[in-house]
């Protein structure tokens, strides 16, 4: 999308930082979902959040557009405390793509569905159509512009839901499990979307169980367990040998290249390309 350059898109608005200050959240039934989370995400960072179901990942990101409000602590976008801000207003700054597309698709036509968000933000006419077309193109669904969303298979419905959030062109993009239910091609689409957003300087926060996706597409990995952040760092450190006990306590396995690299004494190699590079360096050094 960025490479084509044929379509003029409005630039992403200024990207604010995200800051959680000692945020705790308990559901009405008393379940503590977040337990004193403090973290800061700089503008343009690529952050993956991993952890088991129920570890607080989804609860955390729902605070970013006011769907949930902290029981205690503060959430800031830039230097603004958003605890009292309206969801409809925050939606223009934080785009949140949920896990299950069937909990949002309502329109009889893909283009209407994708236009829903930008319309709510006040766009009409040609700019709106441009947004819709660009978003559909980004997820590879240009041919389905007039399709009924419910005639599409699950994986395409999920990409359509993603497009409907992309079309809002928010400075911050939050993706909840974007690769589940996708085949290799679908995953490649999602990776391209993340890369394109990163290329435009936007912040991307993704929740994922897919360790390869996490290790290869993100520069920072946050591991959550029982409502707390237990690991936070670059893939090299979070998937590095020293962190394995903590990872395994969270029922996560480091990606295979990280395991192989450590076993061979090659250091931290969270991705296949890092491992290949380390192997090549070792072979070169040995000669």
């Amino acid at each position, binding site marked *: 999308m960025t490479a084509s350059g044929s379509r003029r898109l409005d630039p992403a608005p200024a990207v604010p930082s995200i800051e959680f200050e000692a945020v705790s959240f308990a559901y009405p039934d008393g379940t503590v979902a977040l337990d004193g989370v403090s973290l800061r995400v700089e503008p343009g960072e690529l952050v993956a959040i991993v952890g*088991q*179901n*129920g570890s607080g990942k989804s609860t955390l990101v729902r605070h970013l557009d006011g769907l949930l409000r902290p029981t205690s602590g503060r959430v800031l976008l830039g230097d603004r405390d958003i605890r009292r801000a309206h969801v409809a207003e925050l939606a223009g700054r934080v785009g949140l793509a949920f896990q299950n597309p069937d909990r949002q698709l309502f329109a009889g036509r893909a283009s209407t569905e994708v236009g829903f968000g930008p319309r709510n933000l006040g766009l009409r006419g040609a700019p709106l159509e441009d947004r819709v077309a660009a978003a559909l193109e980004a997820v590879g669904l240009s041919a389905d512009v007039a399709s009924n969303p419910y005639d599409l*298979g*699950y*994986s*395409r419905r999920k990409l359509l839901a993603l497009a409907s959030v992309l079309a809002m062109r928010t400075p911050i993009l939050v993706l909840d499990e974007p690769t*589940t*239910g*996708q*085949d*290799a*091609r*679908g*995953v490649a689409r999602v990776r391209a979307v993340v890369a394109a957003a990163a290329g435009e300087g936007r912040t991307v926060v993704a929740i994922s*169980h897919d*360790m*390869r996706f996490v290790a290869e597409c993100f520069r920072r990995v946050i591991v959550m367990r029982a409502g707390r952040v237990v690991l936070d760092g670059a893939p090299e450190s979070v998937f590095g040998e020293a962190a394995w006990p903590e990872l395994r306590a969270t*029922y*996560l*396995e480091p*990606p*295979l*290249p990280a*395991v*192989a690299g450590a*076993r*061979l004494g090659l250091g931290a190699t969270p991705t*296949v*390309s890092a*491992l*290949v590079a380390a*192997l*090549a360096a070792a*072979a070169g050094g040995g000669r």
Partner: protein
Amino acid sequence: MAIELVSARYRYAGSASPALGPIDLRVEPGRVVGVAGANESGKTTLCVVASGVAPAVIGGRLDGSVRIDGVDAATLRPHELAQLCGLLFQHANTQLSHTTATVFEEVAFGPCNLGLPVSEVVERVWWGLRVVGVEALASRDPARLSGGQGQLVALASVLALRPKYLILDEPTSELDPAGTVQVADALARVAAESGAGILVVEHKTDVLARIADEVVILDRGVPAVSGRATDVLADPRLAELGVEPPAAVRLEREVRAGGLDWSAALAKATA
């Protein structure tokens, strides 16, 4: 003794073109046959056809034959099919009956439908829960289980009918890593200990590499590659068929592509 598809071709009711076939496939007792393929390549359709649910329950048109232990599946009634061939879907939510207060009663739902004596129902429930490894959940409320637990309970519920074959459509796609491992372990145990033949559709080829004896890759409704699991999962055509190879296979390929040796030490480190 097997589920046998011979030149099977299936078209959904109201659809102009076939969603599956022609396909030949054999699932033998005690064997695990894995199925992978791009989205909309006919994997779910294969599940409903091989289990006899299509066309028996949902209509549509089947050409060729689907035989379960030599009996034409089209001549069996749904409850007879259920005792021969269990079917499990992606979402635990749609499979549980939502009418029971405990996991024990949920698993008992099927055997109760058969009108079995209470003592036999009890026996089957414990057996199903034990093979899957979730006896500890028996007293829990089925509405309050995690995704992985729900899927395991659904698996136990189907097993309690003591089917000779099990067909599963992406049983781990909604699960976190721990849930995926639980379900994969349970399937391996079910195949080994109940002697059931298993057909499992699974995107996660790492899971297939662990549990499958044979693998079929579907492409637009027909098998594109099939054979022994280790051979198929290492086949260079996987990527173009929309299937991500297992991590170990991908790693070996990239190492070789980088002009490096695939040494014994590397093989050991990635095993």
